[in-house]
């Protein structure tokens, strides 16, 4: 097992500190000794096949699940000791976020705000994800992509310093995915720290300062995307097919444009 990478961008102190996390479900060791740190302002991704322990790891750090052993702190707060204090400073988008029926989108955001004891203005939040036009709609009437975008807006109601996104672009069309990438980069520019999981490697490459690859509940490697690619090439790896200067996605976006389709 590799030791945690403590290389910090800008030399900032880690805002997330995870050491030796373990979690067992019945006969599966879901998380098997995970350690890493994330610096303030970093975009950090947990990669790995389904069932590798990404979501469980994130949910432990979010204070939604108790670990069997190990330690996690967010902004200096011990998650196992004060999960509610951690929840107060983080924003969360779950793999499938569902919200109350019979409420308008703007009412849901205001209600979530009240949970953080904040009076919030839904307009900028909904505008960022291009849903302001649909502010009076109910969550149930949204399309899959719109639900995903709304979940992102809901993760931001408390103006969090750390945002956790669990597969934020799964199921989105290329236009919406690019909007999401811009949104995440915008948050990074505001100084927020972002932890995400994804199955799209080009997404991790595009967005992340560092990635950790998980398998069977362990982190098997962790570094910047560039270093990991360099390391692989240094071992003599060659792609069988030469990469062409454009991809099918470029073709798709060229044909259908970059603007969002669903409002």
């Amino acid at each position, binding site marked *: 097992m590799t030791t945690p990478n403590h290389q910090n961008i800008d030399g900032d102190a880690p805002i997330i500190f995870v050491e030796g996390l373990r979690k067992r479900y019945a006969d599966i060791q879901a998380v098997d000794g995970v350690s890493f740190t994330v610096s303030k302002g970093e975009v950090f991704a947990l990669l790995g096949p389904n069932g590798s322990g990404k979501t469980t790891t994130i949910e432990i750090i*979010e204070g*939604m699940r108790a670990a069997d052993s190990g330690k996690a702190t967010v902004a200096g707060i011990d998650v196992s000791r004060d999960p*509610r*204090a951690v*929840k*107060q400073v983080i924003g*969360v988008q*779950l793999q*499938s*976020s*569902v*919200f*109350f*029926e*019979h*409420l308008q989108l703007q*009412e849901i955001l*205001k*209600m*979530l*705000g*009240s*949970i*953080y*004891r*904040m*009076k919030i203005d839904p307009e900028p939040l909904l505008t960022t994800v291009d849903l302001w036009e649909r502010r009076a709609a109910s969550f149930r009437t949204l399309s899959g992509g719109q639900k995903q975008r709304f979940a992102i807006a*809901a993760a931001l109601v408390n103006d969090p310093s750390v945002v956790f996104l669990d597969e934020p672009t799964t199921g989105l069309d290329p236009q919406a995915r690019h909007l999401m990438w811009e949104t995440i980069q915008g948050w990074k520019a505001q100084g927020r720290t972002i932890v995400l999981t994804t199955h799209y490697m080009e997404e991790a490459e595009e967005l992340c300062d560092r990635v950790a690859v998980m398998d069977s509940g362990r982190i098997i490697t962790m570094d910047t995307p560039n270093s990991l690619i360099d390391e692989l090439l240094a071992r003599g790896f060659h792609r069988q097919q030469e990469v062409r200067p454009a991809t099918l996605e470029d073709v798709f976006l060229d044909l259908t444009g970059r603007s969002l389709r669903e409002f």
Partner: protein
Amino acid sequence: MLTNPAIYLTWMSIRMWLRDRAALFWTFFLPMVIMVIFGLLNFGELGKVNLGIVDLAQNETSARFVERAQGMESLRITTGSENGELDALTNGRRDLVLILPENFGPAAGSRDAEWQPVAIRVLYHGSRPAESQVGLSLLQSGIDEINFALTGTERLVTLESEAVAARDLGYIDFLMPGVIGMAIMQLGLFSVAFSFVTMKREGVLRRLLATPLNPATLLSAQVVTRLIAVMLQTLILASVAVFIFGAEFAGNFFAVLLAAGLGGAVFLALGFAVSGWARTEQQAAPLANIVSLPMMFLSGVFFSRDVLPGILQTVTDYLPLTFLVEAIRGMTVQGDSIITQWPNFLGMAVWFVIAFIIANRTFRWE
């Protein structure tokens, strides 16, 4: 104030509830329809015995007899021809038919009460022993009285009966507390069981678990919303019964509301117990029905528990809906206070504790 999660969540959950057409249907519309239908049926009238009289004598004495019978409160009298009345008896429109023979009354020609012994034929419907029995005994006493009067025998023993209830109580007076209790039970059990199971299954609760929300705040918002609904429901159902059907409302309205609130708390706790156990709505529905259906019929909602066999009466004495319905009925019909109704309030309190413990053990967020 609006950033206080407890207040804001309660306010929002009231809004959600008011926008939920299904909830409004079950809470207000359905119980009202039940009350109106049963109110219009007016089962109290069914307690009367339908007596047909065929007067073959057609004289002064027979007319007096008919008049006297019409004065009996428990009889509904019709007169007609022999064929017509016997037809009505076979069709079930009469419980009894009485035939006054031609020689009923003093013998023709005699100045004073010169009676020949006379037999009055009574035909009754074999399939309705209860009504027939009541009718027969009423007739027997009526005929005895006539005998006394005619033969001049002094009555040594008389029976003085007195109505116990000072007010004239009808079926609606019995029905109103029953329907109110039933509606509270349905609201408590089903609204919570369904909405929480839905929120749990879809992951709404999980999303809230990712916020610093105190679970107790969410639960209290849901409970307060539904207790407000219980009060509104009680107010509306009682208004319909009192102002449209003229139901009796003897007791203090706020005391009735308090009973309704306590009953609501009992059934909400039972609802949480059901929703904690059930993973899907498909599991919650039959379970909530298993709890509610027997009570709907055995707790004296639509008919008195007096008609139940003895052992069942004893068992149903302890059902939570029995406590609730009897507390409300005691107040609205007899004008009881909370203090005189303490056993029923105690019964509900005990059920609340039991249900709360079960709910606490079974409730889960995911």
